[in-house]
């Protein structure tokens, strides 16, 4: 089995697992809230693989539900962010020097504030709720991808065949759609997928800090934030398993993105 076949297998496995978690979580809304005071503070065991918390809620179900929420929020935010990056990146590279200067300046500006702090500000601005998290993550993550796309478009514009197309009198739109988009789509897809892990990490961080969702919605950050209070009393499983699952999720997104890049990038043809 060579590298490329392996890469395809990794990609498929990661996508299937993530889809399963995301969809599975949708069906256990009630189960994640269900309290059972006869089953309080149980260690992980057969009936409760991740144990139960101080209200007797099953941590496995809560974790899946939380991850599912986080994945969906992450997906939504990252997608919005990636499209913003695509549009701004192209605009910056094609609409002349003035626009470019403004957009580059905004990119510098956004990058100048540490992500978490900016997220915090946006979330404050939007009243600490679901929208705040989604908008916050979306607004903070587009910058680097926008830079990549801007660079790519600029390079394309300098290339011979685009210049020839211009000389042939093709319209700007025609050139953009016919000649540029096909080159940008792979870059964009990979960039989009590689945004997911970041989006999920930041989503969980901001909810962990208490700026995101209310505690009735057990996003993974909330679960971990709650677990912190019980840590000192030795209830390690409340923090360990949800956290591990979060790490696994993020890694899988990363694996999916990297494998896709390897498959698309012709530079890895001989590996």
């Amino acid at each position, binding site marked *: 089995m060579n590298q490329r*076949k392996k890469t395809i297998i990794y990609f498929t496995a990661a996508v299937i697992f993530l889809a399963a978690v995301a969809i599975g979580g949708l069906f256990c809304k009630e189960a994640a809230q269900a309290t059972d005071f006869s089953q309080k503070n149980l260690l992980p065991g057969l009936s409760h693989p991740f144990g139960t918390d101080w209200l007797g809620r099953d941590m496995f179900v809560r974790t899946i539900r939380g991850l599912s929420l986080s994945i969906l929020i992450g997906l939504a935010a990252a997608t919005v962010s990636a499209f913003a990056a695509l549009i701004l990146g192209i605009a910056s590279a094609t609409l002349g020097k003035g626009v470019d200067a403004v957009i580059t300046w905004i990119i510098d500006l956004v990058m100048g504030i540490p992500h978490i702090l900016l997220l915090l500000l946006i979330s404050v601005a939007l009243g600490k709720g679901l929208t705040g998290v989604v908008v916050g993550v979306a607004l903070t993550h587009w910058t680097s991808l926008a830079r990549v796309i801007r660079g790519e478009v600029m390079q394309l514009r300098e290339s011979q065949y685009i210049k020839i197309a211009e000389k042939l009198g093709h319209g700007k739109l025609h050139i953009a759609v016919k000649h540029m988009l096909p080159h940008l789509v792979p870059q964009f897809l990979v960039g989009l997928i590689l945004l997911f892990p970041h989006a999920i990490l930041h989503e969980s961080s901001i909810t962990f800090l208490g700026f995101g969702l209310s505690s009735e919605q057990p996003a993974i950050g909330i679960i971990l934030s709650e677990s912190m209070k019980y840590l000192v009393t030795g209830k390690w499983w409340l923090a360990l398993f949800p956290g591990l699952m979060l790490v696994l999720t993020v890694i899988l997104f990363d694996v999916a993105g990297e494998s896709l890049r390897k*498959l698309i990038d012709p530079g890895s043809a001989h590996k």
Partner: protein
Amino acid sequence: MKNGRKTILEIKNMSISFKQYAEKKGTKQIDLPVIRDLSVTIKEGEMVAVVGSSGSGKSLLAHGVLGLLPYNGKMEGKISYCGKPLTPKKVEKLRGNEIVLVPQSVSYLDPLMKVGAQVRGGRKDAAAKERSRELFRRYGLEESVEDLYPFELSGGMARRVLICTALMKNPKLVIADEPTPGLHLEAARQTLSDFRAIADQGAGVLLITHDLELAMEVADRIVVFYAGTTIEEASADDFRQEDTLRHPYSRALHRAIPQNGFGYIEGTQPYVKDMPEGCPFGPRCEGFCEECQKDIPWVKSGNGYVRCIGSLEAGRMRA
């Protein structure tokens, strides 16, 4: 008299191939042969030019001899150095000392290191300093050049600096990889005569170039390289006249020289992936026949070698 000299490098049936995916998005891997059945011999004090157009895999020949192929490259065949097989272990010890490379361009120098230090290869002792100064003087480089960075060198200066790097030790074999492109004719001539001088002092020089005309001026023997294979080996004298050449491609090359009429033949070199059966030159050759689609042997012909059915028959008919 040259027959009495010691053979320094002998390459027999060298093949170099690369592992690659068969299609752009496919999952099948294939071996891509870039050089096939290459044979070259270099003796003491002799300068042999390997001439081929760009894309014929010439640079890989140098990297192959020096054991510097990338990890997905594979080399077969026999290389012997001074009569003994040149193993990877041995070449690692010899390169930089007895076997040296003069690379193509200034991009082979570290962009952030001063030229003087690079010529000395990181050595800081007085002997190295003395030697590098002497070389600089010999090649007309001012001492202040030592303190320049590679990006500040002119094309001609860069060539001379690169030659200096090779001569820090006393090499027995110098491999010069395309030393002339980007130079104007005078500078190119000067560079090649510098290599000639190195050979005249007893080292073997393997000159890899695309410029047949210049190669004829300085080399003792010329090996013609086409689509990854050697097709003819002959003395430089043989190249002065079309009649003394054995292979139709060599003759075409000869005709392509401006003084000989700027002759032109149809077509291009085949790409490695769609190499024809048998003779790679077949599709462009006037004398193409069915026999040409079989394996063509590398045979002695006069004081040279050739890989061509046509010339075999011509030879037989003459005999």
